[in-house]
């Protein structure tokens, strides 16, 4: 019974969306539209769940004095400060919440991901080997793109950007499309399995 109701909800929601696609008239239009609007609200519950879980993890870390627990208050303070400023002042441009976002959250996010530039360079130096002809082909394709994407490529030889455009439009499209069609068939199969209750792992592995 613990699974019957969630599976019935999954089936009903899935079928409404499918029928709404093929028969965009009443009653499926009405049902589909309401389900879509409700989805937005229920999905936002996941954000609150994530935040509650974050708090739980860090409070537990502090209680049990786990590794790096000293930094947990920093996370909690950061969270609380943003919540308080957001609730008091709102999200409008120029308000304290927006100020902290633009001057702290944005630089932190941008810098965190820019660190990858260093690691990708190091990985390219250590692991990118032309050990067989296919790896050499991959390497050549990467080189052509790296040169064709920047103006210096055209300065070296003016045909490089043209070759890059062709490589992207034809062989790249062919390869990406093969992956895309294969993945799409996988999505269709998995969706059907979910709707008909064959795939249940998303319910937490319960049986």
């Amino acid at each position, binding site marked *: 019974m613990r699974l019957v109701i969630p599976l019935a909800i999954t089936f009903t929601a899935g079928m409404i969306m499918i029928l709404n*696609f093929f028969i965009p008239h009443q009653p499926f*239009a009405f049902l*589909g*539209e309401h389900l*879509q*609007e409700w*989805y*937005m609200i229920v*999905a*936002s519950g996941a*954000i609150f769940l994530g935040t509650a879980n974050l708090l739980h993890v860090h409070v537990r870390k502090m209680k049990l004095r786990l590794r790096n627990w000293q930094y947990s208050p920093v996370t909690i303070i950061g969270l609380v400060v943003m919540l308080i400023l957001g609730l008091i002042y*709102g*999200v*409008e*441009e120029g308000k304290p919440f*927006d100020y902290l*976002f*633009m001057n702290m*959250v*944005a*630089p*932190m*996010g*941008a810098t*965190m*991901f*820019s660190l990858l*530039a*260093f690691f*990708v*360079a*190091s990985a*390219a*130096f*250590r692991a*990118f*080997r*032309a*050990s067989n002809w296919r790896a050499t082909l991959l*390497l050549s394709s990467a*080189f052509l793109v*790296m*040169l064709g*994407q*920047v*103006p*210096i*490529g*055209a*300065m070296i030889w003016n045909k490089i*950007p*043209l070759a890059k*455009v062709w490589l*992207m*439009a034809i062989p*790249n*499209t062919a390869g*990406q*499309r093969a992956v*895309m069609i294969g993945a799409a068939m996988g999505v269709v199969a998995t969706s059907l399995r979910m709707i008909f209750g064959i795939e249940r792992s998303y319910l937490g592995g319960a049986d």
Partner: protein
Amino acid sequence: MANFFQKIGDLDRRVIFLLIALAVIIPITTDLIIPNIVGAEPSRDMFDYVDALPEGSNVIVSFDYDPSTMPELQPMAEAVVRHLFEKNHKVIGTALWPQGAALGQHAMSTLADSLGKEQYVDWVNLGYKTGGAVMIVRMGTSIKAVFPADRDNVPWEDIPMLEGINSLKDIQLVISLSAGDPGIIAWVMMAGDRYGIPIGGGCTAVSAPQLYTYLQTDQMVGLLGGLKGAADYETLVGIEEGPAVKGMSPQSIAHLVIMMFIIIGNISYFSRRKGGAR
């Protein structure tokens, strides 16, 4: 010499970090400018499509990214919004990523101030919604049902430029600036293929190769891929020394340095193999 190449394989990674940092910093500090050339790229298709839209068209610009990809997508956002403002189109901002709502607001408000465009008359930021693709499907029948108010909670009815706009059918173009999922793919599938709305987009360089498939099928009208796409759009719009165009010089040098790393790494690998080492 062979011994040198064998040893260089054990180079401390911090030396590589330092060289990459210098490859980026030196061109910036020396104001090195390598002129950007726009070839027969999808960025030109995108520019031409926007340019040919009738004046006063309703265009959705969806800011589907966050600060982690800001250096690539923010210059794109600024160039695209500038072009739309200059062509007197109505710009409707949305966001499938929460942080995109604030970044989009800054791009639009800054440009609106400098180009004399008025909020709620020429542009509006409807803000963020959860749901990604599901939200877009609902916009196909009613945009107001998804966005009853804008980002700052001004009701839909109080925004003059939204008068007469009901569903996606009243939108002439959607431009999604996307850092991943949800983003361009969701717009192509839901707004493009389901409701027949033309979709253009800008994306991080990481996701550009995958999106080329939508160009050949005409599911997208154009694409700006990474900083190069942003630089192309800046060049086409006529922004002199925009952040993306300026970024092309350090990008060029850094690409050469990484290619050099790969070549040296391979020489070292083969000389070690020849020498019997692993």
